[in-house]
């Protein structure tokens, strides 16, 4: 089975610029997560989608971050404008369903460096 695909793998931008990340989850997975992982820490949930609806975005800095999941499949996460502290790995994960006792599958992540 194909895994969760993310692109790009790496991105370097200057502060105040914009950036977008793309995620293609495993086919049939209704739940999609975006996580931010700062070096040396565990993943921090930014947003959780169930199909194309937002379930939890309580930790998403909405003044600069936005995310959408078109047609309940692919998703994009955007940062505009970026700050130095946004440097992190952005992980996308998908899951069959949030109310089912199954694991989440993660992509390789996008490593963002803001200079």
């Amino acid at each position: 089975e194909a895994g969760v695909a993310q692109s790009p793998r790496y991105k370097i931008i200057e502060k105040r610029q914009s950036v977008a990340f793309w995620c293609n989850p495993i086919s049939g997975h209704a739940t999609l997560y975006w996580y931010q992982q700062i070096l040396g820490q565990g993943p921090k949930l930014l947003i959780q989608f169930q199909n194309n609806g937002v379930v939890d975005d309580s930790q998403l800095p909405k003044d600069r971050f936005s995310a959408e999941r078109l047609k309940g499949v692919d998703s994009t996460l955007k940062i505009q404008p970026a700050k130095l502290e946004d440097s992190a790995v952005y992980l996308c994960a998908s899951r069959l369903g949030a109310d089912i006792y199954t694991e989440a599958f993660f992509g390789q992540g996008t490593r963002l460096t803001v200079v």
Partner: protein
Amino acid sequence: GESVGLHLPTLSVQEGDNSIINCAYSNSASDYFIWYKQESGKGPQFIIDIRSNMDKRQGQRVTVLLNKTVKHLSLQIAATQPGDSAVYFCAEEGYGSAGNNRKLIWGLGTSLAVNP
């Protein structure tokens, strides 16, 4: 040990020894627990899970123990190999205080170093 800021707890073992990685979880209402392994430059990878109606579950070379009384989870790796070197995260899941949707909460992580 305790993790503070960027300093992950580290466990160092000899190849062939058994490893035990511990995790304290926070929500007594959590009913599902997962262990993930994260190698450098990769996303977390599922290792094993356990539901709250069990106290032990075994996989290939790995065993997860759940003690709900003290809200403690452990991962045991038998005959640890160099390929087991990674950061290990526990995650707990249960319904939020509003009782509507399930939240997956991640622990801080433990770095396992296997010495050949």
